[in-house]
Protein backbone atom coordinates (compact mmCIF):
# COMPACT_ATOMS: atom_id res chain seq x y z
CA UNK A 1 0.00 0.00 0.00
CA UNK A 2 1.33 3.40 -0.95
CA UNK A 3 1.79 5.94 1.81
CA UNK A 4 0.45 9.37 1.01
CA UNK A 5 1.87 12.37 2.80
CA UNK A 6 -1.36 14.36 3.28
CA UNK A 7 -5.08 13.71 3.75
CA UNK A 8 -5.67 15.42 0.42
CA UNK A 9 -3.30 13.00 -1.32
CA UNK A 10 -5.00 9.93 0.11
CA UNK A 11 -8.49 11.24 -0.62
CA UNK A 12 -7.54 12.12 -4.18
CA UNK A 13 -5.29 9.06 -4.69
CA UNK A 14 -2.55 11.20 -6.13
CA UNK A 15 0.82 12.67 -5.13
CA UNK A 16 0.77 16.44 -4.98
CA UNK A 17 4.44 16.42 -3.98
CA UNK A 18 5.23 15.48 -7.59
CA UNK A 19 4.12 18.93 -8.77
CA UNK A 20 7.06 21.06 -9.96
CA UNK A 21 5.04 24.20 -10.62
CA UNK A 22 5.18 24.27 -14.41
CA UNK A 23 1.79 25.99 -14.43
CA UNK A 24 0.25 23.89 -17.19
CA UNK A 25 -2.86 23.27 -15.04
CA UNK A 26 -3.47 27.00 -14.72
CA UNK A 27 -2.64 27.69 -18.38
CA UNK A 28 -5.35 25.30 -19.56
CA UNK A 29 -7.94 26.04 -16.88
CA UNK A 30 -11.03 27.65 -18.45
CA UNK A 31 -11.89 29.52 -15.23
CA UNK A 32 -8.42 30.39 -13.86
CA UNK A 33 -8.94 34.07 -14.67
CA UNK A 34 -11.89 34.17 -12.24
CA UNK A 35 -10.09 32.43 -9.40
CA UNK A 36 -8.64 34.08 -6.30
CA UNK A 37 -5.91 31.39 -6.42
CA UNK A 38 -5.23 29.56 -9.69
CA UNK A 39 -4.82 25.74 -9.67
CA UNK A 40 -1.02 25.70 -9.52
CA UNK A 41 -1.07 27.88 -6.38
CA UNK A 42 -3.61 25.56 -4.78
CA UNK A 43 -1.33 22.60 -5.54
CA UNK A 44 1.54 24.50 -3.88
CA UNK A 45 -0.51 25.18 -0.74
CA UNK A 46 -1.39 21.49 -0.47
CA UNK A 47 2.28 20.54 -1.00
CA UNK A 48 3.22 22.81 1.88
CA UNK A 49 0.60 21.27 4.14
CA UNK A 50 -1.47 24.46 4.05
CA UNK A 51 -4.64 22.77 2.80
CA UNK A 52 -6.75 24.85 5.19
CA UNK A 53 -5.87 27.91 3.13
CA UNK A 54 -6.59 26.06 -0.08
CA UNK A 55 -9.97 24.99 1.33
CA UNK A 56 -10.83 28.61 2.11
CA UNK A 57 -10.27 29.83 -1.42
CA UNK A 58 -13.27 30.56 -3.58
CA UNK A 59 -11.42 28.97 -6.50
CA UNK A 60 -12.29 25.40 -5.54
CA UNK A 61 -15.96 26.31 -5.96
CA UNK A 62 -15.41 27.99 -9.32
CA UNK A 63 -13.69 24.88 -10.69
CA UNK A 64 -15.94 23.32 -13.34
CA UNK A 65 -14.37 19.83 -12.93
CA UNK A 66 -13.49 19.69 -16.64
CA UNK A 67 -10.35 17.59 -15.93
CA UNK A 68 -8.15 19.57 -18.35
CA UNK A 69 -5.55 20.15 -15.61
CA UNK A 70 -5.28 16.45 -14.75
CA UNK A 71 -5.19 15.41 -18.41
CA UNK A 72 -2.28 17.78 -19.17
CA UNK A 73 -0.18 17.47 -16.01
CA UNK A 74 3.29 16.25 -17.04
CA UNK A 75 3.76 14.72 -13.58
CA UNK A 76 0.38 12.94 -13.59
CA UNK A 77 -0.89 14.84 -10.56
CA UNK A 78 -4.67 14.50 -10.51
CA UNK A 79 -5.26 18.18 -9.96
CA UNK A 80 -9.03 17.85 -10.54
CA UNK A 81 -9.08 15.05 -7.97
CA UNK A 82 -7.34 17.36 -5.50
CA UNK A 83 -10.04 19.98 -6.14
CA UNK A 84 -12.69 17.34 -5.36
CA UNK A 85 -10.89 16.39 -2.16
CA UNK A 86 -10.62 20.05 -1.10
CA UNK A 87 -14.34 20.57 -1.75
CA UNK A 88 -15.30 17.41 0.11
CA UNK A 89 -13.20 18.37 3.15
CA UNK A 90 -14.42 21.97 3.05
CA UNK A 91 -18.09 20.97 2.72
CA UNK A 92 -17.88 18.49 5.59
CA UNK A 93 -15.91 20.94 7.77
CA UNK A 94 -18.71 23.46 7.39
CA UNK A 95 -21.14 21.21 9.21
CA UNK A 96 -18.81 20.42 12.10
CA UNK A 97 -17.07 22.33 14.87
CA UNK A 98 -14.37 23.30 12.36
CA UNK A 99 -16.66 25.97 11.09
CA UNK A 100 -16.19 28.16 14.14
CA UNK A 101 -12.44 27.95 13.58
CA UNK A 102 -12.76 29.29 10.06
CA UNK A 103 -11.74 32.89 9.77
CA UNK A 104 -13.72 33.97 6.78
CA UNK A 105 -17.34 33.69 5.75
CA UNK A 106 -17.62 31.31 2.78
CA UNK A 107 -17.79 33.10 -0.56
CA UNK A 108 -21.12 33.22 -2.42
CA UNK A 109 -19.81 30.91 -5.17
CA UNK A 110 -19.01 28.32 -2.55
CA UNK A 111 -22.34 28.62 -0.77
CA UNK A 112 -24.29 28.53 -4.03
CA UNK A 113 -22.41 25.49 -5.28
CA UNK A 114 -22.70 23.60 -1.99
CA UNK A 115 -26.40 24.40 -1.70
CA UNK A 116 -26.94 23.24 -5.27
CA UNK A 117 -24.96 20.04 -4.84
CA UNK A 118 -26.61 19.18 -1.53
CA UNK A 119 -30.06 19.83 -3.02
CA UNK A 120 -29.03 17.60 -5.94
CA UNK A 121 -28.08 14.74 -3.62
CA UNK A 122 -31.22 15.17 -1.47
CA UNK A 123 -33.23 14.91 -4.65
CA UNK A 124 -31.57 11.63 -5.62
CA UNK A 125 -31.99 10.36 -2.07
CA UNK A 126 -35.75 11.00 -2.21
CA UNK A 127 -36.51 9.92 -5.77
CA UNK A 128 -33.60 7.80 -6.96
CA UNK A 129 -33.46 10.08 -10.00
CA UNK A 130 -33.28 13.83 -10.48
CA UNK A 131 -36.57 15.67 -10.62
CA UNK A 132 -35.44 18.87 -12.34
CA UNK A 133 -38.37 21.05 -11.32
CA UNK A 134 -38.10 20.03 -7.68
CA UNK A 135 -34.32 20.55 -7.77
CA UNK A 136 -34.55 24.01 -9.32
CA UNK A 137 -37.24 24.98 -6.79
CA UNK A 138 -35.26 23.78 -3.81
CA UNK A 139 -32.03 25.41 -4.98
CA UNK A 140 -33.74 28.72 -5.74
CA UNK A 141 -35.59 28.91 -2.44
CA UNK A 142 -32.55 28.01 -0.33
CA UNK A 143 -30.27 30.29 -2.34
CA UNK A 144 -32.77 33.16 -2.20
CA UNK A 145 -33.33 32.83 1.54
CA UNK A 146 -29.57 32.68 2.02
CA UNK A 147 -29.25 35.97 0.06
CA UNK A 148 -26.82 34.48 -2.43
CA UNK A 149 -27.95 36.64 -5.32
CA UNK A 150 -29.93 33.72 -6.63
CA UNK A 151 -32.88 35.26 -8.42
CA UNK A 152 -35.92 33.46 -7.05
CA UNK A 153 -38.44 33.52 -9.81
CA UNK A 154 -38.20 36.07 -12.57
CA UNK A 155 -35.67 34.51 -14.92
CA UNK A 156 -36.97 31.00 -14.43
CA UNK A 157 -40.57 32.07 -14.69
CA UNK A 158 -39.64 33.62 -18.03
CA UNK A 159 -37.97 30.42 -19.18
CA UNK A 160 -40.72 28.03 -18.02
CA UNK A 161 -43.23 28.79 -20.78
CA UNK A 162 -40.46 28.39 -23.35
CA UNK A 163 -39.49 25.03 -21.86
CA UNK A 164 -43.12 23.95 -21.91
CA UNK A 165 -43.52 25.20 -25.48
CA UNK A 166 -40.47 23.17 -26.47
CA UNK A 167 -41.85 20.04 -24.79
CA UNK A 168 -39.07 20.02 -22.21
CA UNK A 169 -40.99 20.75 -19.01
CA UNK A 170 -41.96 17.77 -16.90
CA UNK A 171 -44.27 18.66 -14.05
CA UNK A 172 -44.20 15.14 -12.65
CA UNK A 173 -40.72 13.76 -12.14
CA UNK A 174 -39.72 10.12 -12.24
CA UNK A 175 -39.11 8.02 -9.17
CA UNK A 176 -37.48 4.62 -9.05
CA UNK A 177 -39.46 1.66 -7.66
CA UNK A 178 -36.86 0.57 -5.12
CA UNK A 179 -36.36 3.85 -3.25
CA UNK A 180 -35.61 1.90 -0.07
CA UNK A 181 -32.27 0.72 -1.41
CA UNK A 182 -31.38 4.25 -2.53
CA UNK A 183 -31.96 5.52 1.01
CA UNK A 184 -29.85 2.72 2.46
CA UNK A 185 -26.99 3.41 -0.01
CA UNK A 186 -26.97 7.05 1.09
CA UNK A 187 -27.05 6.08 4.74
CA UNK A 188 -24.14 3.64 4.39
CA UNK A 189 -22.01 6.15 2.47
CA UNK A 190 -22.76 9.36 4.33
CA UNK A 191 -23.50 8.22 7.84
CA UNK A 192 -21.84 4.80 7.98
Amino acid at each position, binding site marked *: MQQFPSPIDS*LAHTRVTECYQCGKCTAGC*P*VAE*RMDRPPNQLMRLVQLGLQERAMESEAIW*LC*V*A*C*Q*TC*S*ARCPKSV*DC*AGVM*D*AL*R*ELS*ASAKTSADQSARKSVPAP*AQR*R*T*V*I*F*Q*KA*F*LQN*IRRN*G*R*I*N*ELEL*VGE*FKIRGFLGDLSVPLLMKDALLAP*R*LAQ*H*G*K*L*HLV*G*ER*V*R*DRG*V*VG*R*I*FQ*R*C*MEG
Partner: protein
Amino acid sequence: MEFGYYPGCALHGSSNDYQASVGACMKALGVGLRELDDWICCGASAAHSINHKLSQALPARNLALAERDGLGELLAPCPMCSMELIKAAQAMRDDAALGREMSEIVELPVSGRTSVLNLIQVFQKVGLDAIRVAIKPDSAERVGGYKAACYYGCLLTRPPKLLQFDDPEQPGSMEEILGAIGVTTVDWNFKTECCGAGMTMANEETVLDLGHKILANAAAHGANCVVVACPMCHVNLDMKQAAVEARHGVRLDMPIYYLSDLVGLALGIEPRALGIDRHFAGKR
Protein backbone atom coordinates in the same frame (compact mmCIF):
# COMPACT_ATOMS: atom_id res chain seq x y z
CA MET B 1 -26.88 -5.89 -32.38
CA GLU B 2 -28.14 -5.06 -28.89
CA PHE B 3 -26.84 -2.90 -26.06
CA GLY B 4 -27.91 -2.27 -22.52
CA TYR B 5 -29.14 1.29 -22.14
CA TYR B 6 -28.58 3.71 -19.26
CA PRO B 7 -30.39 6.94 -20.22
CA GLY B 8 -29.58 8.90 -17.05
CA CYS B 9 -31.72 11.65 -15.54
CA ALA B 10 -31.10 14.30 -18.21
CA LEU B 11 -32.40 12.18 -21.07
CA HIS B 12 -35.53 11.39 -19.07
CA GLY B 13 -35.90 15.09 -18.18
CA SER B 14 -35.33 18.26 -20.15
CA SER B 15 -32.96 16.51 -22.60
CA ASN B 16 -35.77 14.29 -23.86
CA ASP B 17 -34.87 15.55 -27.35
CA TYR B 18 -31.56 13.64 -27.03
CA GLN B 19 -33.44 10.53 -25.91
CA ALA B 20 -35.76 10.80 -28.95
CA SER B 21 -32.81 11.30 -31.27
CA VAL B 22 -30.75 8.37 -29.92
CA GLY B 23 -33.79 6.08 -29.86
CA ALA B 24 -34.92 6.89 -33.41
CA CYS B 25 -31.38 6.53 -34.79
CA MET B 26 -30.76 3.17 -33.17
CA LYS B 27 -34.12 1.85 -34.33
CA ALA B 28 -33.36 2.88 -37.91
CA LEU B 29 -29.94 1.20 -37.70
CA GLY B 30 -31.46 -2.01 -36.33
CA VAL B 31 -29.73 -1.63 -32.97
CA GLY B 32 -31.72 -2.86 -29.97
CA LEU B 33 -31.52 -0.93 -26.69
CA ARG B 34 -32.51 -2.66 -23.45
CA GLU B 35 -33.05 -0.07 -20.74
CA LEU B 36 -31.55 -0.95 -17.38
CA ASP B 37 -34.43 -1.87 -15.09
CA ASP B 38 -35.00 0.59 -12.23
CA TRP B 39 -31.71 2.44 -12.82
CA ILE B 40 -30.80 5.23 -10.41
CA CYS B 41 -28.96 8.55 -10.87
CA CYS B 42 -25.17 8.27 -11.27
CA GLY B 43 -24.61 11.09 -8.74
CA ALA B 44 -22.95 13.36 -11.31
CA SER B 45 -20.65 16.13 -10.11
CA ALA B 46 -22.57 16.62 -6.84
CA ALA B 47 -21.60 13.20 -5.51
CA HIS B 48 -17.91 13.45 -6.39
CA SER B 49 -17.69 16.90 -4.81
CA ILE B 50 -19.46 16.01 -1.58
CA ASN B 51 -18.85 12.33 -0.81
CA HIS B 52 -16.32 10.10 -2.56
CA LYS B 53 -17.88 6.83 -1.45
CA LEU B 54 -21.32 7.86 -2.66
CA SER B 55 -19.81 8.81 -6.03
CA GLN B 56 -18.72 5.17 -6.34
CA ALA B 57 -21.81 3.55 -4.84
CA LEU B 58 -24.45 5.23 -7.04
CA PRO B 59 -22.76 4.08 -10.28
CA ALA B 60 -21.98 0.70 -8.65
CA ARG B 61 -25.70 0.07 -8.06
CA ASN B 62 -26.33 0.56 -11.78
CA LEU B 63 -23.37 -1.63 -12.75
CA ALA B 64 -24.75 -4.31 -10.40
CA LEU B 65 -28.14 -4.12 -12.13
CA ALA B 66 -26.41 -4.51 -15.51
CA GLU B 67 -24.45 -7.54 -14.27
CA ARG B 68 -27.59 -9.08 -12.77
CA ASP B 69 -29.45 -8.70 -16.07
CA GLY B 70 -26.54 -9.96 -18.19
CA LEU B 71 -25.93 -6.67 -20.01
CA GLY B 72 -22.25 -6.80 -20.97
CA GLU B 73 -22.24 -3.53 -22.91
CA LEU B 74 -24.09 -0.47 -21.68
CA LEU B 75 -24.74 2.67 -23.75
CA ALA B 76 -24.76 5.81 -21.60
CA PRO B 77 -25.33 8.73 -24.02
CA CYS B 78 -24.56 11.31 -21.30
CA PRO B 79 -20.76 11.58 -20.90
CA MET B 80 -21.11 12.54 -17.24
CA CYS B 81 -22.96 9.27 -16.59
CA SER B 82 -20.61 7.20 -18.75
CA MET B 83 -17.53 8.69 -17.07
CA GLU B 84 -18.90 8.08 -13.56
CA LEU B 85 -19.90 4.51 -14.46
CA ILE B 86 -16.51 3.78 -16.06
CA LYS B 87 -14.66 5.33 -13.10
CA ALA B 88 -16.52 3.18 -10.56
CA ALA B 89 -16.14 0.04 -12.69
CA GLN B 90 -12.40 0.62 -13.11
CA ALA B 91 -11.91 1.25 -9.37
CA MET B 92 -13.65 -2.04 -8.54
CA ARG B 93 -11.64 -3.97 -11.14
CA ASP B 94 -8.43 -2.49 -9.67
CA ASP B 95 -9.40 -3.28 -6.10
CA ALA B 96 -11.39 -6.44 -5.37
CA ALA B 97 -11.93 -5.33 -1.77
CA LEU B 98 -13.74 -2.23 -3.05
CA GLY B 99 -15.92 -4.48 -5.20
CA ARG B 100 -16.88 -6.51 -2.12
CA GLU B 101 -17.58 -3.33 -0.12
CA MET B 102 -19.72 -1.93 -2.94
CA SER B 103 -21.61 -5.23 -3.27
CA GLU B 104 -22.65 -4.85 0.37
CA ILE B 105 -23.52 -1.17 0.06
CA VAL B 106 -25.64 -1.59 -3.09
CA GLU B 107 -27.15 -4.93 -1.97
CA LEU B 108 -26.22 -6.77 -5.17
CA PRO B 109 -22.99 -8.45 -6.27
CA VAL B 110 -20.92 -6.17 -8.49
CA SER B 111 -17.45 -6.58 -10.01
CA GLY B 112 -17.25 -3.76 -12.54
CA ARG B 113 -17.01 -6.03 -15.59
CA THR B 114 -19.59 -4.09 -17.64
CA SER B 115 -18.26 -2.25 -20.66
CA VAL B 116 -19.77 1.27 -20.69
CA LEU B 117 -19.96 3.04 -24.05
CA ASN B 118 -20.65 6.60 -25.15
CA LEU B 119 -22.81 7.35 -28.19
CA ILE B 120 -19.85 7.75 -30.56
CA GLN B 121 -18.54 4.31 -29.57
CA VAL B 122 -21.90 2.72 -30.34
CA PHE B 123 -21.90 4.32 -33.80
CA GLN B 124 -18.36 2.96 -34.25
CA LYS B 125 -19.56 -0.53 -33.26
CA VAL B 126 -22.39 -0.30 -35.76
CA GLY B 127 -19.65 0.60 -38.22
CA LEU B 128 -19.16 3.48 -40.65
CA ASP B 129 -19.72 1.16 -43.62
CA ALA B 130 -23.06 0.00 -42.20
CA ILE B 131 -24.05 3.64 -41.63
CA ARG B 132 -23.04 4.54 -45.23
CA VAL B 133 -25.23 1.71 -46.51
CA ALA B 134 -28.17 2.72 -44.29
CA ILE B 135 -28.37 6.41 -45.19
CA LYS B 136 -31.03 7.47 -47.69
CA PRO B 137 -30.19 8.31 -51.34
CA ASP B 138 -31.39 11.89 -50.77
CA SER B 139 -29.24 12.40 -47.64
CA ALA B 140 -27.09 15.01 -49.41
CA GLU B 141 -30.18 17.20 -49.71
CA ARG B 142 -30.93 16.72 -46.04
CA VAL B 143 -27.48 17.18 -44.47
CA GLY B 144 -25.14 18.23 -47.31
CA GLY B 145 -25.47 21.93 -46.43
CA TYR B 146 -24.13 21.59 -42.90
CA LYS B 147 -20.66 22.78 -41.96
CA ALA B 148 -20.34 21.35 -38.50
CA ALA B 149 -18.02 22.25 -35.63
CA CYS B 150 -17.75 19.00 -33.63
CA TYR B 151 -17.71 19.87 -29.96
CA TYR B 152 -16.50 17.15 -27.56
CA GLY B 153 -16.37 19.16 -24.35
CA CYS B 154 -14.77 17.56 -21.32
CA LEU B 155 -15.96 14.15 -20.40
CA LEU B 156 -16.01 12.31 -23.73
CA THR B 157 -12.21 12.17 -23.70
CA ARG B 158 -11.20 13.16 -20.17
CA PRO B 159 -9.73 11.78 -18.01
CA PRO B 160 -7.84 10.16 -20.93
CA LYS B 161 -6.15 7.39 -18.92
CA LEU B 162 -9.50 6.22 -17.60
CA LEU B 163 -11.62 6.60 -20.74
CA GLN B 164 -9.05 5.55 -23.37
CA PHE B 165 -11.20 7.15 -26.03
CA ASP B 166 -10.01 9.23 -28.99
CA ASP B 167 -7.30 11.90 -28.73
CA PRO B 168 -7.92 14.15 -25.69
CA GLU B 169 -6.49 17.25 -27.40
CA GLN B 170 -7.45 16.70 -31.05
CA PRO B 171 -10.32 14.21 -31.15
CA GLY B 172 -11.68 13.23 -34.55
CA SER B 173 -14.21 10.43 -34.05
CA MET B 174 -17.29 12.63 -34.57
CA GLU B 175 -15.74 14.09 -37.73
CA GLU B 176 -15.31 10.55 -39.08
CA ILE B 177 -18.95 9.67 -38.48
CA LEU B 178 -20.19 12.96 -39.97
CA GLY B 179 -17.83 12.48 -42.92
CA ALA B 180 -19.44 9.09 -43.57
CA ILE B 181 -22.89 10.70 -43.88
CA GLY B 182 -21.71 13.55 -46.10
CA VAL B 183 -21.53 16.40 -43.57
CA THR B 184 -18.62 18.83 -43.92
CA THR B 185 -16.73 19.54 -40.70
CA VAL B 186 -14.55 22.52 -39.84
CA ASP B 187 -11.23 22.76 -38.00
CA TRP B 188 -11.55 24.96 -34.94
CA ASN B 189 -9.98 25.63 -31.56
CA PHE B 190 -12.54 24.82 -28.90
CA LYS B 191 -13.32 21.14 -29.49
CA THR B 192 -12.39 20.12 -25.96
CA GLU B 193 -12.80 23.36 -24.00
CA CYS B 194 -15.32 23.16 -21.18
CA CYS B 195 -18.81 24.71 -21.47
CA GLY B 196 -19.28 24.82 -17.69
CA ALA B 197 -21.27 21.59 -17.62
CA GLY B 198 -23.25 21.22 -14.43
CA MET B 199 -22.50 24.77 -13.23
CA THR B 200 -25.48 26.10 -15.23
CA MET B 201 -27.54 26.60 -12.08
CA ALA B 202 -24.95 27.44 -9.44
CA ASN B 203 -22.72 29.71 -11.52
CA GLU B 204 -24.51 30.94 -14.58
CA GLU B 205 -22.12 33.77 -15.51
CA THR B 206 -19.26 31.30 -15.94
CA VAL B 207 -21.38 29.13 -18.21
CA LEU B 208 -22.45 32.09 -20.34
CA ASP B 209 -18.87 33.31 -20.77
CA LEU B 210 -17.51 29.88 -21.67
CA GLY B 211 -20.41 29.30 -24.06
CA HIS B 212 -19.71 32.61 -25.76
CA LYS B 213 -16.07 31.70 -26.42
CA ILE B 214 -17.04 28.30 -27.84
CA LEU B 215 -19.84 29.56 -30.09
CA ALA B 216 -17.91 32.60 -31.33
CA ASN B 217 -14.92 30.41 -32.23
CA ALA B 218 -17.12 27.93 -34.12
CA ALA B 219 -18.69 30.79 -36.09
CA ALA B 220 -15.29 32.37 -36.81
CA HIS B 221 -14.16 29.11 -38.40
CA GLY B 222 -17.09 29.00 -40.78
CA ALA B 223 -19.34 26.53 -38.95
CA ASN B 224 -23.09 26.85 -39.48
CA CYS B 225 -23.89 24.42 -36.68
CA VAL B 226 -22.27 22.86 -33.62
CA VAL B 227 -22.58 19.11 -33.04
CA VAL B 228 -22.47 17.66 -29.53
CA ALA B 229 -22.87 14.27 -27.86
CA CYS B 230 -23.69 15.48 -24.34
CA PRO B 231 -26.93 16.75 -22.77
CA MET B 232 -25.16 19.36 -20.62
CA CYS B 233 -23.22 20.77 -23.59
CA HIS B 234 -26.56 21.02 -25.38
CA VAL B 235 -28.28 22.87 -22.53
CA ASN B 236 -25.41 25.32 -22.16
CA LEU B 237 -24.97 26.04 -25.87
CA ASP B 238 -28.60 25.75 -27.04
CA MET B 239 -31.00 26.64 -24.24
CA LYS B 240 -28.64 29.25 -22.79
CA GLN B 241 -27.69 30.74 -26.16
CA ALA B 242 -30.19 33.60 -25.93
CA ALA B 243 -28.70 34.51 -22.53
CA VAL B 244 -25.19 34.30 -24.02
CA GLU B 245 -26.26 36.68 -26.78
CA ALA B 246 -27.82 39.11 -24.28
CA ARG B 247 -24.82 39.08 -21.92
CA HIS B 248 -22.24 39.56 -24.67
CA GLY B 249 -24.25 41.75 -27.02
CA VAL B 250 -23.79 39.41 -29.97
CA ARG B 251 -26.02 37.64 -32.44
CA LEU B 252 -25.09 33.98 -32.84
CA ASP B 253 -28.21 32.15 -34.00
CA MET B 254 -26.19 28.93 -34.09
CA PRO B 255 -28.10 25.64 -34.26
CA ILE B 256 -26.80 22.98 -31.86
CA TYR B 257 -27.37 19.36 -32.92
CA TYR B 258 -26.75 16.11 -31.18
CA LEU B 259 -24.57 13.77 -33.25
CA SER B 260 -27.59 11.45 -33.55
CA ASP B 261 -29.67 14.32 -35.02
CA LEU B 262 -27.51 14.62 -38.14
CA VAL B 263 -27.06 10.85 -38.48
CA GLY B 264 -30.83 10.51 -38.06
CA LEU B 265 -31.55 13.12 -40.73
CA ALA B 266 -29.24 11.26 -43.14
CA LEU B 267 -31.10 8.05 -42.29
CA GLY B 268 -34.30 9.72 -43.47
CA ILE B 269 -35.83 10.34 -40.03
CA GLU B 270 -38.04 13.42 -39.77
CA PRO B 271 -36.68 16.31 -37.63
CA ARG B 272 -39.68 16.10 -35.29
CA ALA B 273 -39.07 12.42 -34.54
CA LEU B 274 -35.48 13.36 -33.63
CA GLY B 275 -36.69 16.06 -31.23
CA ILE B 276 -35.02 18.84 -33.28
CA ASP B 277 -38.20 20.94 -32.99
CA ARG B 278 -37.54 21.09 -29.24
CA HIS B 279 -34.23 22.92 -29.67
CA PHE B 280 -34.11 26.63 -28.86
CA ALA B 281 -31.33 28.24 -30.89
CA GLY B 282 -30.69 28.73 -34.59
CA LYS B 283 -34.25 29.30 -35.65
CA ARG B 284 -34.15 32.93 -36.69
